[in-house]
């Protein structure tokens, strides 16, 4: 375990923003190197010099407490986890759906003018264009879930918050539906809308579970890796 891992972990778990933690740890490492060099200059061995340097810097709990005492270093995930893992993913999902619908509407006007619906087979560049929009639409809950997982892992958030966010995104992803209404006038443009429709509950549940599994998988893998690393470290310390 590196000298400041304990400080880093306790700061991140307490909700301090990763950029502040990174900077603090970086400066502590620089300071540690200077102190070690100073102690070596006094004739101490490397191990003794490092030990003295750590002692002069302060105990890990004291170092962590010094930064924790200042609330403005807290991240949104620490200050308001409900906003970070509830409102923000919802807003992100809405934004991606809006982009996907805009892509569909624009493509309908450009590639399929005068047709009743954009959901018809197309070829060439139009197929690539509509395929990109479709990918964005179907991948939205997964992209949001992966982003939430990344943020939660970086900030060592309590697992319940990202898991709630995965479930929320997966549910919305499974019940969201896109509708295209044909133009009222032959020369006019049609409209695209979205709705939440439970439809067949069993099918929606199955879709939700699949989305949840894909969205949560990287985060769950990280949790398992973290637990395995922690148990390996504690095992080495016991030996």
């Amino acid at each position, binding site marked *: 375990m590196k000298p400041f891992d304990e400080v880093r972990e306790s700061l991140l778990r307490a909700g301090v923003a990763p950029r*502040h933690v990174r*900077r*603090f740890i*970086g*400066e*502590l490492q*620089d*300071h540690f*190197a*200077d*102190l070690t060099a100073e102690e070596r200059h006094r004739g101490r061995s490397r191990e003794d010099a490092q030990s003295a340097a750590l*002692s*002069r*810097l*302060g*105990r890990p709990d*004291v*170092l962590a407490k*010094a*930064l924790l*005492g*200042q609330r*403005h*270093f807290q991240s949104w995930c620490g200050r308001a986890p409900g906003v970070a893992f509830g409102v923000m993913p919802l807003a992100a999902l809405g934004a991606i759906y809006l982009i996907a619908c805009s892509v569909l509407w624009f493509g309908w006007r450009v590639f399929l003018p005068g047709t009743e619906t954009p959901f018809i087979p197309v070829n060439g560049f139009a197929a690539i264009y509509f395929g990109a929009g479709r990918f964005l639409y179907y991948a939205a809950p997964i992209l949001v879930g992966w982003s939430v997982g990344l943020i939660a892992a970086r900030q060592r958030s309590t697992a319940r918050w990202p898991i709630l966010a995965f479930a929320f995104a997966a549910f919305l992803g499974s019940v969201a539906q896109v509708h295209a209404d044909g133009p009222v006038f032959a020369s006019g443009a049609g409209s695209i809308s979205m709705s939440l429709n439970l439809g067949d509950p069993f099918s929606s549940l199955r879709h939700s579970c699949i989305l949840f599994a894909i969205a949560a998988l990287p985060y769950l893998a990280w949790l398992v890796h973290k637990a395995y690393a922690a148990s390996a470290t504690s095992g080495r310390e016991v030996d």
Partner: protein
Amino acid sequence: MAGKSTNPNFMNGVPELLILRLLQQQEMYGYEIVQAIRSQSNEVITVGEGVVYPVLHALEREKALKSRRKTINGRSRVYYSMTRSGSRRLAGLCSDWTNLAEAIHTMLTGAEHIEAV
């Protein structure tokens, strides 16, 4: 931490004052600041050396300090320097501490006078 520790209740605001005073003269990095505090206070004031960084970061956030990364002799370090806002803050802190020190001095010398009587 070497030496005796200073009563923390009497240290409120002291790290800021000392850091701003040191940075008034020249830009410094964390290790330099701590060594300067130790040597210039004849090791009367000793702080956990790593604790200086949250104070520096808070002062920077409050625009009393600014920082830049500089590489000297192959070592990259974050150097801090004082801003105009920091100068004003230092003047205020100096005034507060001078008043406090005078008040304590007056009380202590007053106590001696009473004992003498």
